[in-house]
């Protein structure tokens, strides 16, 4: 099985480690070989969290620049920052709800314009699926389910070797009981939003 390489970038606290965990558990359920790696140092102090997930026969757990098949960004400026991981065949999925870093507040940086950001990513990659995952998460019942919304959108693209059923099964068994319903709803909302965009 040829490797498929997925990068997820997020800001600490956005729950991308849970998203990665659900993906990993789904792969285990479906017997798809998977290897993942994450850098989560200082995540809780507002830094960037990056997970790489490699499906298939590769041994490496990290992904070099230009070699991601899919990039999922939980925050638009972080998606743009991770463009170095992409190539012209990469499919990019991004949340459009910004979380400006503090450097913007103190005036040492300018937050990129969202339209410019989208057209840049579109021009350089195979496909961009951009959605307001925060709004959908709120619609699902909890702003913290942004991770499940984006997971739904990711699965909809069919770019990673996991079915919607398997992932839902993993959400049921591997996320906290009290949140399962909400997580599934968020997943569905992300899934259908992506199918309308795709």
């Amino acid at each position, binding site marked *: 099985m040829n490797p498929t390489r997925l990068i997820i970038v997020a800001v600490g606290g956005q729950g991308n480690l849970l998203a990665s965990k659900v993906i990993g558990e789904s792969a285990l359920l479906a017997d798809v070989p*998977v290897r993942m*790696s994450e*850098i989560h140092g200082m995540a809780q102090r507002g830094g960037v969290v990056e997970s790489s997930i490699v499906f298939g026969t590769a*041994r490496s757990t990290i*992904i*070099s620049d230009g070699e991601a098949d899919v990039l999922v960004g939980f925050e638009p400026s972080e998606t743009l920052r991770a463009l170095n991981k992409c190539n012209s065949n990469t499919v990019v999925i991004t949340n459009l709800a910004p979380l400006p870093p503090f450097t913007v507040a*103190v005036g040492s940086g300018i937050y990129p314009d969202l339209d410019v950001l989208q057209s*840049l990513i579109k021009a*350089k990659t195979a496909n961009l699926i951009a959605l307001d995952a925060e709004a959908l998460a709120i619609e699902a019942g909890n702003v913290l389910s942004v991770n499940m919304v984006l997971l739904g959108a990711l699965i909809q693209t069919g770019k990673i070797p996991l079915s919607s059923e398997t992932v839902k099964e993993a959400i049921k068994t591997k996320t906290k009981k009290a949140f399962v319903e909400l997580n599934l709803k968020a997943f569905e909302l992300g899934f259908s939003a992506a199918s309308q965009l795709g």
Partner: protein
Amino acid sequence: MHKLLAANPGQKMLLLGNEAIARGAIESGVAVATTYPGTPSSEISLNFFQISQESDLYFEYSTNEKVALEVAAAAANSGVRSMCVMKHVGMNVAADALMTLAYLGVKGGLVILTADDPFMFSSQNEQDNRYYSKLAGLPMLEPSSAQEAKDMVAFAFDLSEKLQQPVIYRTTTRINHSTEVVVLGDIQTPITQGDFIKDPFNYVTVPAVSRNLHVKLLEKLETAETISETSEYNFFSGDGPWGIVCNGVSYNYVSDAVKDLDIAHKVKIFRVGFSHPMPRVLIKDFLKECEKVLVVEEGEPFMEETIKAFAQEEGLTLPINGKRNDLFSRLYEYNPALVRQCLATYFDVTCKPAAGVNLSDVPEIPQRPPSLCAGCSHRATFYAVNKATEGMETICPTDIGCYTLGFMPPLSAGDFLICMGASVGTSCGFSKVTDKKVISFIGDSTFFHSGIPGLINAVFNNHNFTLVILDNGITAMTGHQHHPGVDMKALSMEGYAHVSIEEIVKAVGVPHVSVIRPYRVKKSIESIKEALNFKGVSVVISKEGCTLFAKALKKPRGRSFFVSEKCKDHRDCINELACPAFFIEDNRVKIDPALCSGCTVCAQICPEHAILPLKDDA
């Protein structure tokens, strides 16, 4: 039940490398585990800690790595299987014990885990701890995957008991923090009670004894080499003329690169997992069958140098390379594309360059550096220090913890940092040879770890500086582990005492000691000023719990604040305090109520008194 205890043999589980290591230790019947927390090793001890709550495992967060190793060394010399876990720089602290423990050896298995951090994701240097195995004369193992990380622990314990020597188990961040599917093995019941048999002529390392013990150490090292020759962890694959020797994560990158470059038929790969002593005969035989050899290892040319020496012994002249300007660097961690490129260069095969995108027209993206949490007590302390030292020329040695982040503008509190505890020692030096006011910072856990000897030195030699101890009641940086100053009763944990920082500071004779509550801004500034005016050693203990930990414990927090109409846009709050709960909207300062912890500091410093508590706190 803890997931690592509940899982059955044969079960497949998705495990983080560090979880796999912890499970490996449990499967091996580890009975004593000690550590001082440090990334990237922290999750191993976190799992041990949790498991110890519901099993016979004895686990402790020791005050520092040296103590941790001493505790484990004694347990192992009483016949009990023990493991000591630390990050790479912790090994420097433990090295004093390590070097002579290697002479003594052990009875029960002792595995010493060092988690190296190439690229310094969360460390002050990227030293290559493989050299400790050479320096101490101890066997060393290095896994390449999570499965191997688990399995190798069992092998390490057996090896340790066979050789009666501690075994160094070396990982790198990418092993610790990679997640893979792992097949579990049987759990061995730990033997928790041991006995120490007196044998002073083998245990008390006076010169006459050590002279004999060193002979024994070398003999054990020779035995270790014969085991290394036949170890399943040193293995070959392929039979082409080009040789590649690799270890740890590099093996993964090499495996993928060989496939991508379609050169599998041309290469022979030697994966070294038992990497000290290196399997001399195996390597020599390998070299004899190769036209040229590339050594792929992150960090220093540890294997490369040894392999070159082996070639010299055999009179072999084939090219052997690794670290070279056009090949591998000693810097940072490697990645698949880099290894692929170096293989292509060395073996002269074509490699299509990575297909990246052109980034030249991407606008500069604002940086997102980690910062002290909203409402972090350290920010309040640094603010007070900055106010108290206004107009003074200062030098601020700092130390290792969350508060290191205070060195960033606008707080800019932190001028010099070497290692754990060095804030105090370096303060002595700076104050002796400069005219500037020296005011230094150390956290509570770091103070216990290695700050105390420096402070005693300062008192005895009558140095002149102010030490601020940032006491937030927990080891925050590595994920909120406890330390001797933590109020364990408040955490509903039995069986611990409490050590008071204030009493220690007074007991060592610091002539000027004050305690501040950093959220009381004015008072804090006054107390710090007083301390600064004192000639001699003064200590300010700044006491306030870690906000993030309070959140994790679901403690009630203060009301969130908001910026009212009275705001005249001085922006002192942003320019001098820079709490990340602030943001700018429509050119006005605002506070994100979800982030604000209600520490009240910004409200106290606003010259217009424009920052007010929200009436109805959501």
